[in-house]
């Protein structure tokens, strides 16, 4: 995968591109792409993958003009247009799934297939989604992984919050990334998608880790009930970060889309 930059109406956007096959646009979750790079490599064996960063993620420029869900949705369509991709397979994980769902609802004729991987965007009172914005870094692995120990190791590799320099860089990154994510996820990660899901026409795959403790598998059914043509792929022994924990299974499920 190669990291590149493309200009859009509002802001230059950083994106990874690589692989061959049908075009697939992958939208990352609130944690960014750091944990998904291997997954993208695997995906690139079957697809021509484009994975843009939300402005403010990684080394990309922030975009204060993106304030609400419609801004995020239209901006991401702007990115797809700028990339010259027509009728892509649209895949999104967690926050990225929420954006992908909104995009498919807004422009139902422009999406070939839709894959929502443990997407945010709905809220069920019986299954409240834990507040990641109030979590301390070392509390995150508990809600993100099936294998908490392995997950924590991968996530915190090289992290030393006791080192003031590291802490400052970490806080800046958090402010940039989660500051942007908060526009659509804070304080409740729901912006009315439930009322728009009926518009989605694309054949849709809902991929979920069976042990997801952030967005409970009950949400898979809620999405399925609201989308006309949706199939659920429930992956055992996986938590919220299912593309990281069960890379091969998620790639295999996505491959069935073509």
């Amino acid at each position, binding site marked *: 995968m190669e990291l590149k930059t493309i200009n859009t109406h509002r802001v230059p956007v950083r994106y990874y591109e690589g692989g061959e096959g049908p075009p697939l646009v992958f939208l990352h979750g609130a944690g960014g792409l750091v944990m998904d790079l291997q997954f993208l490599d695997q995906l690139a064996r079957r697809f021509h993958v484009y994975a843009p960063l939300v402005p403010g993620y990684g080394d990309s420029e922030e975009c204060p003009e993106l304030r609400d869900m419609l801004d995020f949705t239209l901006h991401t369509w702007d990115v797809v247009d700028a990339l010259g991709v027509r009728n892509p397979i649209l895949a999104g994980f967690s926050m990225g799934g929420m954006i992908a769902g909104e995009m498919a609802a807004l422009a139902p004729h422009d999406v070939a297939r839709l894959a929502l991987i443990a997407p945010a965007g709905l809220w069920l009172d019986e299954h409240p989604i834990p507040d990641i914005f*109030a979590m*301390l870094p070392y509390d995150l692995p508990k809600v993100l992984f099936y294998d908490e120990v392995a997950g924590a190791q991968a996530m915190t590799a090289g992290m030393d919050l006791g080192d003031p320099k590291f802490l400052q860089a970490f*806080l800046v990154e*958090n*402010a*940039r*990334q989660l*500051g*942007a994510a908060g526009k659509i996820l*804070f304080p409740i990660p729901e912006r009315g998608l439930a009322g728009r899901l009926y518009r989605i026409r694309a054949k849709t795959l809902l991929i979920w880790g069976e042990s997801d403790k952030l967005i409970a598998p009950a949400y898979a059914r809620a999405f399925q009930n609201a989308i006309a043509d949706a199939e659920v792929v429930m992956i055992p022994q996986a938590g919220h970060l299912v593309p990281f924990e069960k890379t091969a299974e998620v790639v295999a499920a996505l491959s069935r889309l073509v």
Partner: protein
Amino acid sequence: MRFTWFNLMPWPYLPEDFREQNRSVWVDISGNLFDPVKGHALYNDYMDLLEYAGGVGFDGIGVNEHHQNGYGLMPSPNLIAAGLARRTDQCAIVVLGASIALYNPPLRVAEEFSMLDCLSGGRLVAGFPVGTSMDTNYCYGTIPGLTREKYAEAHELIRRAWAEREPFAFNGRYTKLRYVNLWPRPVQQPHPPIHIPGGGSLETFDFCIDHTYSYSYLSFGGYIRGKQLMDAYWDRVAQRNTPDTSPYRAGFAQFICVADTDSEAERLYAPHVHYFYNRCLHVYPGFADAPGYRTIKTIQKGVLSQYAPGSLFQEHPWKDLVENGHVIAGSPETVRQRMEELIEGLRVGNVFCLMQIGDMPKDKCMHSTRLFAEKVMPKLRHLFAEYAGDGRFWCHPLPKRAVPAEVRERPLVDA
């Protein structure tokens, strides 16, 4: 010098094992810990204390806004201020302040402050905090990354509402109003003096300088730790070529305990100070700073929330708390010396005296308050005499003010 007697209104009945049994004193504190019957007595005691301070010579009495908070029982400071306006007649009513980004529409703040200014005869000192992340983001759900933009818009609306005399349309991003038409208007024209409580954000320094507002640092860390931040503020004032360096451009909050002797101060007040630091400041660090609340520029300057991990001071012995300046405590002479250090060292014309601390009972608090008013305050009045005429940051009451009348029905004269 302006001395404001400030009450946070802490809940004094947090159990001894509060820290062990609870994650946080703020945001998700258990509702089971609040007892409304005790609350009834407590609000009245706390208002009595504020009124007492207003009567013994403090320039102002102060309240502020917190939500879901075990050490700050004033979700609505304006309610308390309204009560205080009726039972005091000389002191300023300092509301420090109303979190303007949290009101929908924020015009509400312009209205209520106007009411308070009318009610008190122009004794209002108004405060516009951005609000802590706990209050603004976690309790009231404001999106962290949009908080400052929302605040700026609310500020613009309030200032225009106070200034304009004819209805106008306000097309904001967060507030859209077809007919902004403020009734009532404040006594003080063009507007009551404005103080901005801040926690070190550079944007807030500039905001105060640009609008001639007083910058107040409401820290619980005391004046020795606070110096670094206030120095940064005064550096910024100099850098920006501000026309003057009046000490009234700045304020500072300080815990103060006065007794007849130093050892008496420890005996009387130490348990209550410990209560505050050990129970009231038990804030879950995950609520300290929602990502996006603080700007990148501010984080890069190394300014962190006083509630951030590692910032809180716990289990310090009394001696350390006093020596480090967290608390200024002792005999009137000891307190005078240290207050001088604070006032001159930080260059602050406004001092917010935190004298009700933790679970300190009313009688002790009145004792400390009276000693400060009688034996300390008069000896600090001479400081910054050259700026005594600077009226920009304090209220200007009407010379003749109404007093609450005794309620007695008189025979109706029917002409």
